[in-house]
């Protein structure tokens, strides 16, 4: 496979996923719940006891710890989640859905399901969706051990002859 074909293929993956996800989340945003709030609510809704350690939530949402803290602050102010330390280990902080959070999560989850039927299953049939899911599972398994490096590791690896142009967009979510 040529470099060009490889780049084009991955660009299509980026555009296909991003466009579809935007379209699906738009159905939820119309109710006033931001898309990334929904992703957090939905994850908690599908978890036993509707709660997860903050660190786990950050990882599953592909967010930085700082970004998630800000997001959780806002969601807590709206009364959608509670944060409390684990009784067994005070260092672990959990985010848990409140009653109101469960209600909002359920309402938006219904919209999400019908949007997925329309914008994903309406485009791909069941067989193609199964093949897409299989390929994505292969990617997940291939990278299971590749945890994102820490800030310190990035700093060491960076080519010092180049200026640091990084902008930490995700932390301002």
């Amino acid at each position: 496979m040529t470099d060009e074909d490889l780049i084009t293929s991955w660009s299509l993956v980026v555009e296909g996923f991003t466009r579809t996800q935007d379209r699906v989340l738009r159905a939820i945003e119309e109710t006033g719940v931001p898309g990334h709030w929904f992703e957090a609510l939905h994850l908690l809704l599908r978890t036993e006891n509707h709660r997860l350690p903050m660190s786990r939530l950050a990882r599953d949402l592909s967010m930085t710890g700082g970004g998630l803290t800000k997001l959780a602050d806002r969601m807590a102010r709206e009364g959608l989640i509670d944060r409390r330390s684990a009784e067994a280990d005070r260092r672990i902080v959990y985010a848990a859905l409140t009653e109101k959070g469960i209600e909002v999560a359920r309402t938006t989850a219904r919209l999400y399901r019908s949007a997925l039927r329309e914008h994903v299953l309406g485009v791909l049939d069941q067989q193609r969706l199964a093949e897409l899911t299989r390929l994505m599972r292969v990617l997940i398994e291939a990278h299971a051990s590749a945890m994102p490096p820490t800030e310190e590791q990035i700093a060491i690896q960076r080519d010092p002859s180049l200026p640091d142009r990084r902008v930490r967009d995700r932390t301002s979510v």
Partner: protein
Amino acid sequence: VTDPSGLSDDELVESWAVVTQGFQHTQSLLGLDVDAVLGLAPSWFEVLLRLLRAPEHRMPMNRIADDVTMTSGGFTKLADRMVEAGLLRRTPSTNDRRVTYLELTDEGVRVAERAMAEHVSSLRARVLAALSEEGIVSLAKTMRDLRNANSAYHQRLADKQ
């Protein structure tokens, strides 16, 4: 709830969750690879990559904003910072003064080419090695169909034809 296609709501949600996780995790590792070597944030790299592949390394601003799916306000700020860093310049269109183009500077081309080389080697190591060529071709075909169905821009293109 089951529909005639035979896929339950839970199965559908689970499938899309796998797609989301697989995409986001891989994309963030690919971004970290380029960032680690060049100190280039993923949003910057995305803009450089698109311009590098565009004819004469230039594109209308609103078209790039649309491609990288950012709001025009958010994209204006990003473009401002990249202009300040000497990677891009703004140029007016020769036929329509209302349209502003973004163009790579020489420095922009140089950085974009280095980033591209890094991106290719990380795609080979992380995606091609895992999926094989057949897998990537299938993935890209499916994602192209999703993009065409769910993007207003690509729908307009299809309507014109």
